[in-house]
């Protein structure tokens, strides 16, 4: 049994669950930082850079932004109310996000917009693909919390809801940056 999963550690002031998720998010910041650094290198050194708003499905992208914001709001609602209903809604919304993303990918690939065509498209598929993998990971985490809620009890579930709310906020922030860099530029 890992200590301080429910009560806070006196020296850190947080539970080990919160501590763990912050360390995980720090490593995630470094991962996406490296990807944004690669984006900067390719964009600044490129003689020509296409406008994402002309090339990509901006409408789907904007709708997906709202969907993702709605999912994160639902996760925060679950954290504040200590209920699992909003977490299930968040999971459904996140699944809709992935479904729309796959529709978008299918449309782009059908138009010949493959990653090998340009560095812009290579970065587009890399950044959005990594982000989509994180959304999928968030859905798995949500379902894991819902499935284990009865077994673990209210106190442990509260800690887990706190952890996923931080994670989903991170996923939202990354999407905002990706959306601005790729869709609005």
């Amino acid at each position, binding site marked *: 049994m890992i200590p301080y999963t429910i009560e806070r550690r006196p020296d*850190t002031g947080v539970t080990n669950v919160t501590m763990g998720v912050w360390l995980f998010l720090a490593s995630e*910041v470094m991962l996406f*930082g490296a990807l*944004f*650094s690669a984006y900067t290198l390719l*964009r*600044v*050194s490129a003689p020509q850079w296409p406008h994402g708003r002309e090339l990509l499905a901006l409408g789907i992208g904007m709708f997906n932004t709202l969907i993702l914001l709605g999912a994160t709001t639902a996760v925060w609602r679950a954290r504040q109310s200590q209920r699992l209903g909003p977490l299930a809604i968040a999971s459904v919304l996140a699944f809709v996000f992935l479904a729309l993303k796959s529709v978008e990918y299918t449309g782009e690939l059908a138009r010949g917009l493959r990653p090998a065509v340009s560095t812009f498209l290579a970065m587009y598929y890399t950044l959005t693909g990594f982000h989509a993998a994180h959304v999928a990971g968030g859905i798995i985490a949500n379902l894991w919390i819902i499935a284990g809620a009865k077994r673990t009890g209210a106190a442990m579930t509260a800690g887990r809801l706190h952890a996923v709310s931080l994670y989903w906020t991170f996923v939202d922030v990354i999407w905002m940056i990706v959306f601005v860099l790729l869709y609005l530029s």
Partner: protein
Amino acid sequence: MTMLLVVAMPARLFACPICFQLEQGPVTDGMRAAVFVLIGVTLVVLAGFIRFAIRVARRGEAIARTEPQP
């Protein structure tokens, strides 16, 4: 030892031409900007770790002060 390496394998010791004496242009601009982005991200994360370490140290001292001495 270093001198021996310089004589034996000079090509392995000198900086690669991509980074060394590269002419100014879009590639160097891009590389410079990318390095700044990565340094910025790294500094933010490191600042977070340092802030957390200071917080833990202060809390630890506060706990030690309140605990009864044996």
